[in-house]
């Protein structure tokens, strides 16, 4: 199957899932047997019939639920997520403000996790059942078992407060001015602006949270790397490669790793979701101005428009990341190309 057809097919498959996500979010937000007006407008505005009417009309509240959902969907397609009760701002604006910080953190966390995980996995596979294998595996298991928020506190206390090896909480030193907003990702924006001081500070502040989040997925990735490497290392073509007299390092890295890549990429896609969850749990500890703190505030204040907006968005990101993973398969696995 040619690449564009394959991609098109995957994209089309994604659409009903995205629609379904909005439906699930809508059902949860409307499951509460309370008047959405009470839940969505501040007390002081409830007596204002004009405002109440305008709100009813915008969200079709006088209509049956199915129509309400369609109205919501229609607004959503125009980029209108509604207005947050708590911040009183359009949710789309709020998301644009807070999401990049979380994306940046989840992405550097992924990079850290993949690097750690792949290295550990290879070590584990090559020295299978030796002491180092057990140590690495135990370390990986600890990574997935210690709650991220505990890991974050340990990291902050030991690595930052005691030893001073890594920068402290916050996304950027308060004295520095954030780079001009292009992507919202400080690393990219500061590099584009050529502001290396901001770049360095932003990078130094990403180190600890990325390691903490990376620890979690590194455990999963090293496990998968280990098993798929073990499988690959025993395969016939590996024996052939060795018999050709290639050096073991070349055999392992070039032939072994490239063939073990397919399951690893799958896991990376799947664990992006846990990374987003981890970011939500650690943002308050790292004073990280991200979507997790926003979502937390929304869910404790029953700000349902914001809860729906964020859930839909994060679920969509997760679906899209996995779509990208599917497309990556196409390049990594010849069997899909043949199918």
């Amino acid at each position: 199957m040619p690449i564009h057809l394959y991609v098109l097919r995957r994209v089309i498959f994604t659409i009903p899932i995205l629609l379904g996500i909005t439906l699930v979010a809508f059902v949860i937000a409307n499951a509460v047997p309370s008047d959405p007006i009470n839940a969505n407008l501040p007390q002081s505005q409830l007596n204002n019939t004009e405002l109440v009417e305008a709100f009813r009309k915008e969200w079709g509240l006088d209509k049956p639920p199915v129509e309400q959902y369609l109205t919501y969907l229609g607004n959503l397609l125009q980029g209108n997520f509604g207005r947050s009760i708590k911040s009183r701002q359009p949710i789309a604006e709020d998301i644009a403000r807070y999401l990049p910080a979380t994306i940046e953190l989840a992405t550097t966390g992924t990079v850290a996790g993949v690097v750690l995980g792949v290295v550990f996995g290879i070590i584990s596979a090559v020295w299978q059942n030796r002491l180092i294998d057990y140590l690495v595996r135990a370390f990986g298991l600890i990574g997935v078992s210690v709650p991220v928020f505990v890991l974050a506190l340990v990291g902050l206390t030991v690595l930052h407060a005691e030893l001073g090896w890594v920068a402290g909480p916050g996304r950027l030193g308060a004295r520095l001015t954030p780079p001009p907003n292009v992507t919202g990702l400080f690393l990219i924006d500061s590099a584009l602006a050529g502001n290396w001081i901001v770049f360095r500070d932003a990078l130094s502040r990403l180190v600890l949270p990325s390691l903490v989040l990376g620890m979690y997925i590194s455990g999963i990735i090293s496990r998968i790397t280990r098993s798929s490497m073990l499988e690959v290392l025993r395969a016939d073509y590996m024996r052939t490669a060795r018999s050709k007299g290639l050096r073991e390092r070349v055999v392992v890295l070039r032939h072994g790793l490239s063939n073990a890549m397919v399951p690893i990429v799958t896991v990376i896609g799947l664990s992006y979701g846990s990374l987003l969850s981890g970011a939500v749990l650690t943002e308050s500890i790292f004073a990280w101005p991200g979507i997790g703190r926003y979502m937390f505030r929304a869910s404790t204040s029953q700000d349902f428009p914001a809860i729906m907006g964020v859930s839909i968005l994060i679920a969509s990101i997760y679906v899209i990341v996995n779509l990208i993973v599917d497309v990556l398969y196409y390049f990594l696995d010849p069997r899909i190309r043949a199918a």
Partner: protein
Amino acid sequence: MSSTISLTPASARRKALNRAVYIARRNPLLVIGAVVIFAWVLAAPLAPSLATHDILAQDIASRLQPPSAAHLWGTDELGRDIYSRVLFGARITIPAGVSVIIIGSLIGTVIGAVAGFVGGIWDEVIMRLTELFMAFPTIILAMAITAALGPDIRNAIIALVVVWWPSYARLVRGMVLKVKQMEYVEAAACLGAPRAYILWRTVLPNCIAPAIILTTLDIGNAILTFAGLSFLGLGPEPTSPEWGRMVAVGIDYFDQWWTWLFPGMAIASLVIAFNFIGDSLRDLLDPRMR
């Protein structure tokens, strides 16, 4: 045939024991995990006799004390004994994690079995539904649900069950599809047994084993997520010695490391233990991993 008959019960037992010892030797992680879980499962019911202090007794004068002989793991911001609270915390976190898994796996198993057995449009609908639920990162979906239901321990469990059932539904459905193809099921159908009966008596028993393995792998995860929700303040009430909640208080007192480290280690030890067991079981059952 004769060799089987000649086996006495005692030698069979010895053989089983030898095999267990062999497995344990080869899988030190399995043993460690089992010991830790056993210790916690024992600690929970025995908490009242193991605890050194009343877990609600406040003592402002001796608040935020570091670990000492009087308070093994120190005291918290209201002068309560952290060691005793962590012990009692086992009575909340372990049952919560286990009930999420039990309820979630029961619901998932039933739904998955129906999907696999009935097939057709129902299968399609249920499978798409599971995909939808699995598209949300766990914490996000659980936060949305607790927002709708209000934060307390029961609602946190409900939220996690909603997040949890789909993976069981998918697993069991897959197994049902596989078993359905087998001859004995077809034979039962040919004999005119009702569908529900076939499902109940022949298919399910064959799918239960993998589901049970998934549950052991999963309890650690459920405990972790439950502690996460309660860390965010979406779980039990503030006075509760729930571990995640205790760690959350530590953010305000992170200089006083004992306030958050001990409950944090409690969560970690339990989850590590479950993961040690799960990992070893996976290796035992999946020869490719050896």
